């Protein structure tokens, strides 16, 4: 049977791995390549790698960790795919077909589009035709206000006037393979996943959903798997701060009969 997935999200800001809270505050967590190596050893199911730099300077500025300093995002991805053998989704700063090609060439398996899809729906169609639906993940930052759900534009820091349910149906029709739904209100808060929202979404679509935003402990992950049909849960902070995090999360879920891959610690070679 197909397994439900646990996916660590890595936010990369100017070459550094960072933690975010409510999409506003950022704290430095260190070298992205060593972090990926760890996450790989704990048998993560996939990785999502998002470039949230506001400019194009990538300098991890450390040469003491055995990896060269990388000035370019693509070099960082290329390094990552040499130490880890699992599916990688790469997002951020994708505005044309060539950008996608370049990311796939260095080892990405899927790419994620956020605001590009909102403002240019036709690009979703074009990209999924060219690379296949399985390659195109649409990432949506959603915000809840007065019991209503809206799409949030992280760059402009404002709500977009589009019906979110309508939009999700449209991207599915245009060939999106998966949807990453990230709660702005819950980002970095540890208050648990927005279960109501994920249930509402599944009333209208049937492509896999990745729930993100709000995990405070392993139980939150159990809760969203137990009460919704989401295919995967993604999280950033909780997976970076605890030793063996992904392994422990998986163990918790596995023992509670959630259909995840058997927990494992990989010590390869």
């Amino acid at each position, binding site marked *: 049977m197909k*397994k439900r997935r646990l996916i660590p999200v890595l936010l990369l800001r100017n070459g550094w791995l960072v933690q975010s809270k409510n999409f506003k505050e950022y704290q430095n967590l260190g070298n992205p390549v060593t972090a990926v190596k760890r996450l790989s050893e704990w048998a993560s*199911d996939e990785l999502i790698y998002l470039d949230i730099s506001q400019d194009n300077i990538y300098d991890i500025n450390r040469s003491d960790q055995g990896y060269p300093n990388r000035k370019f995002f693509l070099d960082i991805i290329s390094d990552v795919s040499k130490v880890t053998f699992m*599916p990688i989704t790469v997002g951020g700063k994708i505005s044309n077909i060539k950008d996608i090609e370049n990311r796939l060439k260095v080892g990405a398996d899927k790419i994620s589009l956020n605001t590009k899809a909102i403002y240019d729906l036709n690009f979703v169609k074009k990209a999924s035709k060219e690379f296949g639906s399985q390659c195109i993940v649409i990432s949506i930052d959603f915000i809840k206000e007065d019991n209503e759900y809206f799409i949030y534009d992280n760059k402009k820091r404002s709500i977009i006037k589009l019906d979110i349910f309508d939009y999700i149906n449209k991207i599915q029709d245009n060939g999106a393979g998966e949807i990453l739904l990230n709660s702005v209100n819950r980002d970095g808060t540890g208050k648990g996943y927005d279960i109501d929202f994920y249930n509402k979404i599944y009333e209208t679509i049937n492509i896999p959903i990745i729930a993100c935003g709000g995990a405070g402990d392993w139980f939150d992950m159990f809760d969203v798997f137990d009460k919704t049909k989401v295919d995967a849960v993604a999280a950033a902070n909780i997976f970076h701060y605890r030793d063996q995090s992904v392994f422990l999360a998986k163990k918790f879920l596995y023992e509670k009969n959630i259909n995840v891959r058997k927990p494992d610690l990989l010590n390869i070679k």
Partner: protein
Amino acid sequence: MNKKVCILDYGSGNVKSVENLVKFLNFDVKISNNETDILEASHLILPGVGSFEYSMNKIKEKIPIKILENEVLSKKKFFMGICVGMQVLANYGYENGKFEGLGWVKGEVKKLQVNNLSLPHIGWNNCDILKNDKIFSDLNDIRDFYFLHSYSVNLENKNNIIATTVYGNKFCSVLKQNNIYGIQFHPEKSQKAGMILIKNFLNQ
């Protein structure tokens, strides 16, 4: 004999990932479509992502098929096709029309019958091993692999199916015909399980 791995290059997107893994396992490896490299190789790997038709066109354009066939079908060199690289081994593929494959194994490539599940079949799923084989050594505990496809090979000779997977219905996830292996999932993205499988293949 020293092992030499040749990953056949016809422009498939995932050659780099396969190379990364083979290198990680410390084997001598080349990405190439060059005649000499194919002749010198002890193991040949044909990776694949994309549609059947696209892959077959590229293979015909870039790879010296006659030479490859002589190495694999006559000289019985170890060969592994991954994902679409497995599918093109069949006679025909039915993705966006009917297209001819390499025809090394008798069978056809058809869309997965998944009932109400979504396609493509993306994610980790397990293999049921039907026949003991060297490539499954040390895989007793872990049999989950990463899948990413909408089509699968329907083999004429069911004896050549050595593992199956269920997604809606059962399909062939690993085929073996003499020295030829076909792998529907992506070992290069399947962490430890994929690593062991590729290692087993290369150690033959």
